[in-house]
């Protein structure tokens, strides 16, 4: 288990849980549901926000939000 904010560029994982109800609802509505593969595509020049790729959709997430998103790394 890792926080989304700790992922390396190119690293993938499976969405496990979100520790903030508001953020969780927002992600859910955009189709980011538990069990989906999330890949950290890139970081912005100041390392915040980050861009994640979820089912062909690129999302910009602020680092403070990424810390609340828990990811299961695939090969664990």
């Amino acid at each position, binding site marked *: 288990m890792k926080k989304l904010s700790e992922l390396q560029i190119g690293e993938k994982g499976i969405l496990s849980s979100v520790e903030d*109800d*508001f*953020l*969780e*609802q*927002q*992600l*859910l*509505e*955009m*189709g980011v*549901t*538990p069990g989906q593969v999330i890949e950290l*595509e*890139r970081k*912005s*020049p*100041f*390392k*915040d*926000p980050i*861009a994640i*790729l979820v*089912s*062909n*959709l*690129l*999302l*910009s*997430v*602020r680092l403070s*939000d990424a810390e609340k998103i828990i990811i299961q790394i695939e090969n664990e």
Partner: protein
Amino acid sequence: MSSKTIKIALAGNPNSGKSTLFNSLTGLNQQVGNYPGITVDKKTGTCNLFSDIKAEIIDLPGTYSLYPKSLDEKVSQDILCDITNLDYPEVTVIIADSSNLRKSLLLLTQIIDLKMKVVLALNMLDVSRDLGIVIDKDVLSEELGIPVVSINARKHEGLQNLKDTILDVSTPKKTIFSVSTLFPVLIAEGNNIRGKENDYATFLSLCKQKLNNNSAVKIKLEVLSKDEGFNPTRSLATETVRRYKEIDKILAKCIGENTALIKRNFTKRIDDLLLHPVLGYLFFLLVLFFVFQAIFSWSQLPMDWIDNGFSFFRNWVATNMPQGMLNDLIVNGILAGLGGIMIFVPQIAFLFAFIAFLEDTGYMARVSFITDKILRGFGLNGRSIIPLLSGAACAVPAIMSARTISSSKERLITIFVVPLMSCSARLPVYTLIISMMIPETASWGMFNVQGLVMMAFYLLGFIAALLTAFVLKFIINQKEKGYYVMEIPSYKIPDYKTVIYTIIEKVKVFLFDAGKIIIAISIVLWVLSSYAPSGAFDRIEQEYANVENAEVVIPSKKLEVSYAGMIGKSIEPAIKPLGFDWRIGISLITSFAAREVFVGTMSTIYSVGGTDNYSIKQKLKSAKNLETGEVFFTTAVGISLMLFYAFSMQCMSTIAVVYRETKGWKWPLIQLLYMSVLAYMSSFIAYSILS
């Protein structure tokens, strides 16, 4: 045969092509109105569905679901969930981006489960097919129990089929996700209380969504959810997850292998450049350079046309209409005001042409991505950068462009600080004062001092804007949670029609909404400067009839005795600590219309023939302090005056636009007060130190 009108709502995710479809359906038959009490624009339009059937289409703000989190989304929810709402549609059209169908289906299935008549329009099915996504639209239609049509909004393809389908659509045959499987007792009880058999509507109202409930029902529902231990936030999350499971089952039956990698690779390669730590910012600077060129230089030519056209027209009216007060009111009050409004049109058009173009390509989301961190520290966000920097050309279009900021707090802060940026209207004021104070040949090392001072004032405006934003971050309290997870759409070639419609819409909004206020203030200013207590003007005309230069001396003396002159004189004690006298006082009042009027008023009041900069400069330089007889425009007075113009809100168009954009007088008045105090204090301090 009488014609019939049916109400249609157009809904869908952001970036789904919704606005393009709206434009294709309605063309120029569209208006922008207001939803009562909020700052979201209401776009409506009409089109013909059939020979005698018209459609009234409402373009709802982009939304992902019926659970609102932002004001924009709340609008969609209010209309779609409330059968008594005036805009409640007979048919809803959901537009979906075929290459991202999954997330479009959340909103769609919610609407289906509300048992509303709905049509799904799959946009750009052909494009997604090229990318390897194969959607069987007949199976999809069968699974969803609603009609599904394929369209290409840009190319106007499939629109007739969509219209025919709208006419034929009936209430959905299926329920996609039955919420009563999650909360059987709760929903049954809720249905009883509401007296309606609509499970999903009951669920949404239990989640404290604003639905069509009278207050007795509302209280009963609240009691019910307390008794059942119902947690709205958790329940919504559970419901969304379950709904997506149903959606995934449906998609598995009708969508081919998702191998949309060609497009992503293309987008990723461009992003490697445009989001690069060095190249990304360089490219952004280049874009800014073009935006600046456009609002500063390219719009100059059409602005001159408008200016000259109005001057010509005013002269024509002045000479061809019977002389008198009415003539003067039309020429110097109304036409001057109209000219003052029209002059902004080129700048608005150019800025929004760029913004619509960049937004449509997908680049604006990237700008936000690379600037968000820097601006966040100042209470702004990545979307604030374009309004903020455009403010250096003109605050009016800049404030209008703050629309793209979805967090209302950050948007408000942006609107508040934009007028502090030194706009192009301050340029003539700065130029005049600088050229008076500093010799053209003065240099400091290899730099021209005049240029350095000018740059310092531009920088000062920028710093003031950032510091003000920083302070406001702590002052403005907003309960609404920000919306920070943002889609970064794939790059696409922009649609020129979207650009054109955006320009038309923005220009119309400015002319009609802000224009009214600007005309009203113009007329007030005209009254103040063209009326005087009875007999005062006659006395001046007799007294100065035979002096040399009567044609320049008389207007000057008349302005002095007019009501504006009287106000200018009466505020002298207040502005004396800044080094100003009543003559500047009058100019401050008249230039409230627009800053550049300062130069014209100064030339009238100092009875300068002609208004070219050279003669004004000479005249002002030789102006004497009326009390001491020494040179009036000292460096202290010059700096104080420039600081005053740098910070004060001397622009009625900005006030009118802030009123329009914040939908009320609260913010424009606070802003006016703040900027006046800031201007006064900084001029006072500068003058005290320098003199």
